[in-house]
């Protein structure tokens, strides 16, 4: 998809500003960070799919400011942020979307890239009908009582 007519620098933005009314929304649209892609490859990620960084991925990245060439994927700032957030702690897609302040659909695309590159692990939610053990629901009930 060709990039939209969204100016990349402030001067150009100011120049074009009058062409946009309020309904046009932000000048840099969220899907800009995905290169315009709106769907990730692979299986669709549920809002409660849990994401955790692969330990390997963290070793490859020297730091959040260093985007130089992990072999599989050029990690952008948003993706570096995801890797940092999910280090050791699984976070849901919904939580990541909140942390990054991006729509869940955008986060899904970013996660799809990371997953394909083997930098994250994803745990898909279990269908209630496939819950391995009814005791899990009992555990939930007890846990709720204990709140």
């Amino acid at each position: 998809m060709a990039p939209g007519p969204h100016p990349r620098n402030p001067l150009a933005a100011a120049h074009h500003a009058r062409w946009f009314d309020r309904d046009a929304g932000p000048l840099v649209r969220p899907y800009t960070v995905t290169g315009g892609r709106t769907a990730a490859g692979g299986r669709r990620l549920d809002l409660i799919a849990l994401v955790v960084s692969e330990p390997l991925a963290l070793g490859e990245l020297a730091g959040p400011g260093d985007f130089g060439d992990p072999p599989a994927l050029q990690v952008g700032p948003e993706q570096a942020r995801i890797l940092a957030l999910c280090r050791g702690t699984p976070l849901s897609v919904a939580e990541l979307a909140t942390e990054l302040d991006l729509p869940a659909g955008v986060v899904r695309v970013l996660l799809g890239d990371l997953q394909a590159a083997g930098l994250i692990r994803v745990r898909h939610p279990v269908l209630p009908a496939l819950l391995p053990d009814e005791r899990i629901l009992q555990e939930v009930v007890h846990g709720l009582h204990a709140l």
Partner: protein
Amino acid sequence: MDFTHSDHPPVPLRRSGPTGRSGPAEPTGRSGRSGPSGPDDGALALKILVAGGFGAGKTTLVGAVSEIRPLCTEERLTEAGREVDDLGGVERKTTTTVAMDFGRITIRQGLSVYLFGTPGQDRFWFVWDELARGALGAVVLADTRRLTDCFPAVDFFELRGIPFVVAVNRFAGTREYGPDEVARALDLDPGTPVVLCDARLRASGKEVLVGLVEHAGRVHAARLLADAAPVR
């Protein structure tokens, strides 16, 4: 293996999902590797929806029971949502952005319940479908002054066979209705619980969720039995 206390885990947790098949790039096999696996392994998340008309108390309920209170957004590109834009003759695609309340309750390490408040407006139904997929169940909040507002939610969950309870949020100064009156007015299927609640109170919200999880457990158990029964 996660859930070592489970005697008979019939479902491989790592790869279970809406269709039971694993995605192409899903690195499920890695779970078998040796070494410390970390707290993430075996993490299980359940989803509960909170629905109801505008102002019925969805946000309040989620906020009352959740340990976090964020908002997340979902966006959908709308093809040719607007007229052709003058700018260079390039047709703009517009997006619809929906904000959803969501909350989390950590039952224990590796077991969390996520609550999602469903958006009220009709044009956001696409989010409902997304949210409902794989949900354990739903709470339909009802305001007795505007009971018809929760008809769409009741229909939605009944049609999809998603277990739900109706929680009548008691607002000050409103007439009290009994659960059976509400059930009749909403024409609920028999067996759908109706409870009275005060969405502002954590204890009350807890009770609603407990009622839902117990109800969902019964519904799923009944379905398992029905599936197991020999077909004639």
